């Protein structure tokens, strides 16, 4: 079997034992890697209803056949577990040297089980697995943790770590790596923290198994050069992801004031031009051709690595328009190991709830200094307020009551990323049907909606486009595992990816083969949700109520007076289900599951909710 090591390392923190499980080519072809491996393993091995923050949950780091190979932007690893944020399947990807090192150590995935007695660093060096004390790191931020590990194991080591947020089980704690990389929005850092796992360090020395290493080396190096050249010509990296902020502001898609507004006259102060002007350094992931980590000096003079989602949710959505102050909030989230998006959206929800009299408090939109203090309280779970904010917006709303759940900006418990869909039905659908909650990484259809159809449309073409993008973004890139940016931002041909895959594995797959795996994984994740929520229905795939609220419309600008409509959204959702072969509850039908070779999984899920 080429392209895979055929080995999964299983580590138990309770017993301090490890073993290597093998897998065969049939498993590899069916699930490929990354998200595919993670979803299948979690479905098979987790008992329904386990506490996401208990020792029964499992933390997975998984790579794919392309991951770590010198080729365009292959430095990503998928981290996954049952989500403390949503209670369903959770995952995310991040750029890290773990990608290459895990493969060189001889593994395609790592499963971490149990709970350590004391804070622990898991050290993996080829076949050697060690459980090292991390007492002196417990309570330290992510930056100090990373530096401590680099000092002992070298900068070439693969490192995943958590900050205080993960230690204190903040439900939106993420996993961190390198200078500013983060992943696992649905609380993957909290799962590490629940296991008292401060960090994972990986070093490997073996060659990565490939069908034709010489051909892959030439192909990969040629394409690294080509994609880098395209980026230079296009100028994308000048503003990186934050180029989109000014555009969102112009087309009424920017989150402002807990998504109450869609644009703001001060937005230019935190846009991509200002970010580029303030740049002091640029960082990227391993094998990156288009480094997107623009770093600025924050208000306290520290380096803060920014991108659009961070600035949208910690900046405009909180009405903080001083870029250095947004940098400070960004830095604190990174150091505490909090998801910038959920942290920003939770604070903005809290400010909104105070504004509307739902809860008493002293936090106001625009108050950056108080926002810093609130992040600290949440990360350390200090006091009632820290504990409220550490739960995320949905749980906070349920505790506050008074109708505030309508403006907790989340889907399935995960906060909406930085695109305001007050009147963008297709993107609202993309958030609604994302398999991990409202994440933009699965599908992004806004330019399609504005340019190739109409904003007003709720037609099947939008549902079709969401699925097409899910197959590529949430499917292909998450299971082969590779960064999507060369394709999405530079137009690097999608046909290059089967080429890499086939050169490495010796197989002869087409894009249609890839889409079939993608559809299988999406259906598998639906079954995971069904098992956790047997009374699941299509409401789980609805965006926040406030986007449908006629009282919440813009009073001026491009979408003045407009809002989403329930009956039309429901029809759009039905188009999505129909194309996917899902029933009216939003579950794959038995016929669909059979077509995707998921008969055994369907039988296992059947008793939880009457598949049709």
């Amino acid at each position, binding site marked *: 079997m080429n392209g895979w090591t055929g080995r999964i390392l299983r580590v138990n923190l309770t017993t301090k034992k490890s073993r290597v499980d093998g897998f065969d080519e049939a498993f590899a072809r069916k699930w490929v890697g990354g998200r595919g491996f993670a979803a299948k393993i979690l479905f098979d091995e987790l008992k329904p209803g386990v506490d996401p923050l208990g020792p029964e949950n499992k933390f997975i780091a998984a790579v794919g056949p392309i991951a770590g190979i010198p080729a365009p932007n292959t430095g990503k690893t998928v981290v996954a577990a049952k989500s403390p944020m949503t209670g369903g399947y959770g995952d995310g990807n991040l750029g890290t040297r773990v990608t290459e090192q895990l493969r060189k150590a001889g593994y395609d995935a790592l499963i971490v089980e149990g709970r350590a007695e004391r804070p622990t660093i898991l050290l993996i060096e080829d076949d050697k697995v060690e459980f090292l004390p991390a007492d002196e790191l417990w309570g330290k931020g992510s930056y100090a943790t990373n530096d401590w590990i680099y000092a002992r194991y070298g900068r070439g080591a693969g490192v995943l770590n958590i900050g205080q947020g993960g230690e204190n089980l903040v439900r939106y704690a993420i996993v961190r790596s390198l200078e500013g990389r983060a992943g696992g929005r649905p609380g993957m850092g909290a799962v590490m923290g629940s296991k008292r796992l401060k960090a994972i360090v990986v070093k490997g020395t073996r060659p990565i198994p490939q069908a034709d290493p010489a051909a892959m080396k030439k192909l990969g190096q040629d394409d690294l050069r080509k994609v880098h050249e395209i980026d230079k010509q*296009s*100028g*994308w990296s*000048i*503003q990186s*992801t934050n*180029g*989109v902020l*000014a*555009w969102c502001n*112009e*087309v*009424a898609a920017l989150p402002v004031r807990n998504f109450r507004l869609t644009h703001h006259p001060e937005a230019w102060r935190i846009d*991509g*031009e200002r970010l580029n002007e303030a740049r002091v350094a640029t960082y990227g992931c391993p094998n990156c051709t288009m480094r997107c980590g623009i770093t600025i000096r924050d208000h306290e003079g520290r380096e803060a690595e920014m*991108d*659009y*989602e961070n600035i949208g949710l910690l900046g405009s959505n909180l009405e903080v328009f001083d870029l250095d102050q947004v940098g400070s909030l960004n830095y604190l989230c990174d150091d505490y190991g909090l998801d910038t998006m959920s942290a920003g959206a939770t604070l903005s929800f809290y400010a909104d709830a105070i504004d509307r009299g739902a809860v008493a408090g002293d936090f106001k939109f625009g108050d950056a200094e108080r926002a810093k203090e609130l992040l600290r309280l949440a990360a350390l779970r200090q006091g009632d307020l820290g504990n409220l904010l550490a739960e995320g917006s949905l749980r906070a709303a349920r505790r506050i009551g008074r109708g505030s759940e309508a403006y907790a900006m989340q889907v399935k418990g995960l906060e909406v990323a930085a*695109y305001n869909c007050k009147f963008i039905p297709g993107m609202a659908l993309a958030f609604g049907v994302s398999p991990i909650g409202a994440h*933009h990484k699965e599908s*992004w259809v*806004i*330019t399609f909606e*504005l*340019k190739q159809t109409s*904003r007003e449309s709720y037609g099947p073409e939008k549902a079709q486009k969401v699925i097409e993008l899910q197959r590529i973004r949430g499917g292909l890139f998450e299971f082969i595992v590779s960064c999507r*940016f060369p394709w*999405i*931002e530079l*137009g690097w041909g999608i046909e290059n990816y089967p080429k890499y895959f086939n050169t490495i594995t010796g197989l002869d797959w087409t894009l249609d083969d890839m889409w079939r795996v993608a559809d299988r994984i999406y259906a598998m994740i639906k079954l995971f949700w069904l098992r956790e929520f047997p009374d699941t229905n299509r409401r789980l795939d609805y965006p926040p109520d406030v986007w449908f609220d006629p009282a919440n419309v813009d009073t001026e*600008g*491009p*979408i003045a007076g407009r809002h989403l409509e329930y009956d039309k959204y429901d029809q759009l959702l039905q188009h999505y289900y129909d194309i996917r072969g899902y029933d009216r509850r939003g579950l794959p039908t038995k016929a669909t599951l059979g077509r995707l070779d998921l008969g055994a999984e369907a039988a296992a899920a059947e008793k939880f909710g009457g598949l049709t």
Partner: protein
Amino acid sequence: MVKVTVKLIGPFIQAAGWSERVLDVPEGTTADGLVAAIKLDRNRPRIVTRNGAAIGPDEPVRDGDRVVIAPIYSGG
């Protein structure tokens, strides 16, 4: 002549050397005509919006319009 405010987004700023200007253009100037007048690469995929709504390449701009010319972003 009609007066339009043109806002450029992302890499188009470096290509043109400015990010926002009020321009006088002949009446009937289309979205594509505006792109040509600014000397942006016409082969580069883009989305042009007028007052926040997308317009086609042959649609004329009007006096007082705010026209935004952006590359095709894909949302990070």
